[in-house]
């Protein structure tokens, strides 16, 4: 509630409040610099809020950061992976540090390997992967241990149409199985397709929050882009 982050006198996030329901895909949408990534980083325990508070599965971000990390999984925007590791070694490494139970680690690895869709290429070093392959590997890593909340920052940024489509489809499929997603995107048309509810952000604040259809109806707009233009005026 009222989450805020100030960098050197500049309010990157200014009193943001929203709730994500279990099993839904909740999207933060807005232009570059709106404060989406900073909000996600605070919820992923990477950054500390300078004001307000947030709870993830009832756990306070500031006081129970380690417990929060056991329930979430975070994919930063344009993240890379360890280039000298093979794809399967990377998935195994992340499973090893994320899960304590050996059986759960094996299960997560098998699920991640399948979800990545990289097949035999998993045995090759990550530095030989294309951007799309790396992103699919990272998405598989993010969800393979079936986190309570998967936080995806611009999951399809910089990807071609087909790779972006595959990632969106994977997110929808996992959400249908009950996984909760908090995603950010500046691509409002993508968000309309992928999310159950949307918070439109600009200059560190949430301008509106509802389902895409409700937002469009309320602003008599054809799409979320029109809604944003209407709200940002």
């Amino acid at each position, binding site marked *: 509630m009222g989450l805020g982050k100030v*960098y*050197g006198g*500049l309010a*990157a996030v200014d009193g943001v409040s929203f709730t994500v329901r279990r099993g839904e895909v909740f999207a933060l949408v807005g232009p*570059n*610099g*709106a*404060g*989406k*990534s*900073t909000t996600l*980083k605070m919820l*992923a*325990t*990477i*950054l*500390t809020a300078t004001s307000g508070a947030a709870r993830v599965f009832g756990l306070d971000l500031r006081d129970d950061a*380690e417990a929060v*990390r*056991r329930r*979430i*999984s*975070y*994919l*930063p*925007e*344009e*993240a*890379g*992976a*360890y*280039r*000298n*590791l093979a794809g399967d*070694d990377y998935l195994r*490494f*992340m499973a*090893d*540090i*994320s899960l304590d139970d050996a059986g759960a680690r094996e299960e997560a690895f098998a699920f991640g390997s399948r979800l990545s869709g990289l097949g035999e290429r998993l045995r090759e070093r990550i530095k030989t992967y294309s951007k799309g392959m790396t992103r699919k590997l*990272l998405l598989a*890593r993010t969800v393979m241990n079936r986190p309570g909340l998967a936080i995806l920052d611009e999951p399809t940024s910089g990807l071609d149409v087909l790779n972006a489509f595959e990632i969106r489809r994977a997110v929808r499929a996992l959400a249908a199985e009950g996984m909760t997603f908090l995603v950010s995107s500046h691509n409002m048309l993508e968000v309309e397709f992928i999310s159950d509810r949307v918070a439109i952000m600009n200059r560190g604040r949430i301008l509106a929050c509802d389902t895409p259809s409700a937002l469009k109806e309320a602003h008599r707009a054809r799409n979320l882009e029109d809604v944003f233009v209407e709200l940002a005026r």
Partner: protein
Amino acid sequence: MRKFLVLVRKEVRELLSPQFLVPIILVILLFMVMGKVLARQNMGSTATETIAVLDLDRGAVSAGGLERLREAQYQVEAAAGADAAEALRSAERGRATALVVIPPGLEDSAKAQKPHELQIYRIFRGLDVRSLVSATMGQRAIRLLADSIGTAAARRRFPGADPAFIKHPITLREHVVVNGKTEPASIAEISGFLQSQTKFVPVVIFMVIALASQMVALTVASEKENKTLEILLSSPVPRRTVVAAKIAGSGLVAMCFTGAYMIGLQVFLNSIVAQGPAQYSETALRGALVRLGLILSPGGHALIGLSVLCGILCALAIALILGILADDVKAVQAANAPLFVTVLFSYLMTVFVDPAGASAGFRWMLYAIPFTHAFLAPQNALMGRHAAVWLGIAYQAAVFAAFVALASRLFVGETVFTARLRRSAPPRD
């Protein structure tokens, strides 16, 4: 513990990449090749030393002297020319490294017991190691020649007496005293041995500390740049474990490189040390060193190793913090510069300055640098000052613990992501 080991293994695998390994292997190979080349040059310099001689006396004394040079494996060639200037021009055109001019009257001077003059012209054709070594060898040839002439003069003046006694009535018997133990031994040889021991190890320490610190700073900066650090630190693994694993992984790799460097540098140094003929046999020198307590026991080696390890760990912990300040991989060198300069300063000061003889302020400043104790460990251990080594290790351990605590603090909070070396606009999105 399991997660720690998983993280250490990842660090090691990331570090053992071609971009890290190739320069290191090249440096080691370079040491070895340089050593072999120098060894070959040294062998060549003793075998082919050519001395040009213009003997204007042509008497029995000068002939005896030149014969002595030939016996000592020098190539003696007669210089073409009627005077010194002509002979020098001829020698310069040839292979000779020195010209000896024996003016007329040497025979008469020896008979009349008057000092006579020999003219020596040393021809430098370059300033490479071989030329400089040759100059030393040439000096030895001149001493041999002068000694031979002296023997001839002594025989004429004191027939029947031992010329060696006439020339050197006093025999110098050198002794070396270390920590109350006295041993008859060559001062120059003991000194040479100690220098090789106390100068060799610090070179390796310096290189390893510089390399290891660069490594860890690079891994942190690279993880920040690729955002793998954000993924790692949002995972359910204690952040202090991440810090410990980074230091342990880099430390392990650095230790492997230390061994490799030591082998390479040992080959290099062996080839340089094996230049001149020893006054005493190697066995006698070793015996003297053992009795003087100057041969390190396995415990002494372990003590030096521990001090070096602590020095490396201090550098790793500091470099970890400096790596946090670097925005990206390109900025690592700038971020790491203060550490590199400090290590270099400590290394040079311990090589050229005796801290015990320095002013109190300078001495304590030097001791405050944790790497100084690693550089001083070999000489302290050789001199039996084990307490000083242990004190140094204790200080290094305290510095290491302080910097690890600071690094952990930075990792636990958000500073690891927000700290920057340059003042730049904060991330907005």
